[in-house]
């Protein structure tokens, strides 16, 4: 490695050209601008920044992903009903249009920021970062980030979350994990939602869904839940309890003010009024 700029040695030959003319060649194994940088490095950089912010405040951030209509917002409503007195919850909602989902969450008395993405089919770290400026992190225990309903693109963007939760509703095919391996491979928890409908659906086998998740080398739990049957949500709530404990333990062991602003992008962190 070059001791001055940190670039690495490459085994490949190099050509240096001027207006199409090769002015110099370098044989293999000499010096190059080998970069090996993740193409998503800018997003990853901001995501790390978001993660630091959240860790500074001991906030657990959960990225909820699924196809449209699998019950993310209904799950959040039921979760707020059950855990709203235990944890201070906040929500970032991602949708192409409308503030409907944020309004549903706000109706439960929980602060919610709506990110309207236009034609963008996923949330990225910058959107979450900017949305955080509208929330008072000191007043939040659990931040749910409801991603845009889409099983493809959201899988590729780190938002700074502590965990990914993917919903698979019983009205979808039980082979969704096999069809969307990138999404389901990255899930820390897979919730089979609308499970109250399983008895009337003859083509959804929860065991097959679990097997497809395992085939992605993913050992995540895959419980069956229904937002309409709060008693079925216990595995989900227990999982949240464990994640909150973990976030708090990490926070307790964290030096105060560890997160310094080393990043290059210029922005300010002014307190923004909570939108409720």
């Amino acid at each position, binding site marked *: 490695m070059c001791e*001055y700029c940190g670039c690495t040695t490459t085994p490949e030959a190099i*050509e*240096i050209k001027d207006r199409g003319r090769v002015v110099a060649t370098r044989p293999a194994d000499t010096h190059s601008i080998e970069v090996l940088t993740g193409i998503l490095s800018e997003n990853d950089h901001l995501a790390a920044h978001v993660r630091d912010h959240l860790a500074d405040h001991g906030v657990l951030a959960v990225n909820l992903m699924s196809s449209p209509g699998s019950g993310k917002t209904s799950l959040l409503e039921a979760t707020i009903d059950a855990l709203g007195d235990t944890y201070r919850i906040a929500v970032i909602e991602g949708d192409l249009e409308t503030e409907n989902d944020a309004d549903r969450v706000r109706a439960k008395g929980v602060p919610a920021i709506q990110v309207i993405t236009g034609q963008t089919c996923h949330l990225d770290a910058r959107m979450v970062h900017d949305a955080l400026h509208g929330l008072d992190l000191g007043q939040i225990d659990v931040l749910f980030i409801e991603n845009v309903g889409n099983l493809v693109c959201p899988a*590729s963007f780190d938002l700074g979350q502590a965990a990914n939760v993917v919903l698979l509703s019983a009205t979808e095919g039980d082979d969704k994990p096999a069809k969307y391996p990138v999404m389901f491979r990255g899930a820390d928890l897979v919730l089979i939602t609308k499970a109250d409908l399983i008895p009337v659906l003859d083509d959804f086998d929860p065991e097959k869904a679990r097997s497809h998740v395992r085939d992605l080398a*993913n050992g995540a739990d895959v419980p069956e839940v229904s937002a309409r049957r709060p008693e079925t949500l216990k595995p989900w709530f227990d999982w949240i309890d464990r994640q909150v404990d973990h976030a708090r333990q990490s926070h307790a062991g964290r030096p105060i003010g560890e997160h310094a602003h080393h990043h290059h992008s210029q922005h300010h962190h002014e307190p923004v009024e909570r939108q409720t």
Partner: protein
Amino acid sequence: MAAAHDARQVSRIKLAIGPLSGVEAELLERAFTVARMGTLAETAILDIEETPVIVWCEACGTQSHASLNRLLCGSCGTWRVTLRSGDELLLKSLELEFPDQPEVAEAGRGAPATGDGECHV
């Protein structure tokens, strides 16, 4: 990056993309023809290496090729494997063109670093 190295133009961009990265190489190539317009990479060749899906099984010590949605050990069949390759989305290297700098030709293999703290590429 090209500007940071005072390059005049980017002539080649080498990427490594795995099928589990969530990026389709073919679509990226098509998007690149539009994205490069008006940039230093306007005439650059996009060179995409598609990496294989390879898993490592600790239990039986086997490394094997796997398919996208069946990341199982090729030997014992367990799902308790670690992905070794297949989720990359990497910019591996850039080939840059510089304004007239014939002295670069003499830099050669293992050229001693200059005293001004700059790295001559």
